[in-house]
């Protein structure tokens, strides 16, 4: 069990809730950690700001920093008009970053290491962009695929490329987060297993285990960075895509 780096991604039913259309609906470990993330975000954003202190305490300062961080990111890439998507972008960032951070803790489950979750989130963004883009701009939204100032003889090619890149957005958007989480956790698990395997060999093994142990420590720090960075990348790409739906003409 310890040697299997995939085992940590196993979805376990904690209790079943029944079957809908041949699909089992269950309260799983994934559900549990989603709810934990929900509780943490709620405690931070609502619990810590309850006093509405003029001089913020630590937790309120974190809540305010998160707010201003996302607000600045969104405003700088999608402009003031983009601020109508602030709750969506903020919820996405906080949800992903919290789930990623929880995943670093040993014995926890990383919800974002499942592609169905990241695909759902990126489809949410993709569909929001399309629906809002057409609702706001009508057919002018197609300008997104036709860059201005391009010679007419290569315009069809460029348009084809633009359409392809637009359609592949949800794929790269979701796979980037999923693959980073998955790969990072597998690597950590592999190096962790080396430590236990070598440790089982006696004194020589103990000395030999120092290297993978120190690598595990370093990788944990790297994973902490990746956990934040991938949440941020997901968020900033969301901002850029939303900007396209607000201002389709390049």
């Amino acid at each position, binding site marked *: *069990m310890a*040697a*299997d780096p*995939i*085992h940590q*991604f*196993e*979805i*376990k*039913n904690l209790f*079943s809730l029944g079957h*809908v259309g041949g*699909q*089992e*609906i*269950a*309260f*799983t470990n*994934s*559900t549990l950690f*989603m*709810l934990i*993330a*929900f509780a943490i*975000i*709620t405690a931070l*954003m*609502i619990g810590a*700001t309850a006093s*509405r*202190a*003029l001089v*913020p305490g630590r937790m*309120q300062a974190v*809540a*305010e920093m998160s*707010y*201003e961080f996302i607000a600045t990111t969104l405003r700088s890439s999608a402009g003031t008009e983009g601020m109508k998507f*602030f*709750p*969506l972008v*903020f*919820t996405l960032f*906080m*949800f992903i970053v919290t789930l990623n951070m929880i995943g670093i803790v040993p014995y926890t489950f990383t919800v974002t*290491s*499942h*592609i*169905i*979750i990241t695909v*759902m*989130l990126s489809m*949410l963004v993709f569909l929001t962009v399309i629906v809002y883009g057409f609702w706001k701009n009508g057919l002018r939204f197609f300008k997104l695929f036709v860059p201005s100032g391009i010679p007419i003889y290569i315009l069809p090619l460029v348009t084809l490329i633009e359409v392809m890149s637009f359609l592949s957005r949800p794929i790269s958007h979701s796979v980037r987060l*999923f693959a980073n989480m*998955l790969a990072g956790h597998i690597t950590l698990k592999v190096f962790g297993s080396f430590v236990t395997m070598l440790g089982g060999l006696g004194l020589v093994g103990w000395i030999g285990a120092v290297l993978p142990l120190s690598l595990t420590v370093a990788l944990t720090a790297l994973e902490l960075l990746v956990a934040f960075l991938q949440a941020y990348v997901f968020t900033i790409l969301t901002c850029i895509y939303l900007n396209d739906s607000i201002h389709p003409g390049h």
Partner: protein
Amino acid sequence: MATSTPTSTGTVAPSGAKGHFPPFAKETFASQILWLVIVFVALYLLMSRVALPRVGSILAARKARIEGDLAAAEKLKADSDAAIAAYEKALSDARARAQALANEVQAKQAAAAEENRKALEAQLNVRIAEAEKSIAATRTAAMANVTSIAAEAATAIVERLIGTAPAGATVEAAVAEALKR
């Protein structure tokens, strides 16, 4: 792809992991999607309705407070600057007035002194003139006395020498001649 149910406690053998890759286990998708939708929507509503307006209002209140305080501080600074300027002006005014007063007093005193001096001079001049006049009178009188004394002495000398008194007019003429030399 995956055949084992998610309720299984996990395939232990590495060979089993080949056919069983949890992120692609389709039978878990329905649960995950359902819970993701529930949790995400709940979180979205909570953030957009409660958390973000609250944090936004906290930040706006703080910004307003800071700007208000800064404006008040600026106003106070302007007030104190004005007070300093007024003080400086009053000081320089007072200084100028004192200077003017001192100049005036000095000028007045100088004029009075000049006047006194002139009056005194005039007075002295009068007295000098009077004294000169009296000196001249005294001198004239003395000169007249000298002539008569000399005439008497010459008469007496001549009388002793020759025994007879000369005529008064002759003696006076001779004395006047002698005095002229």
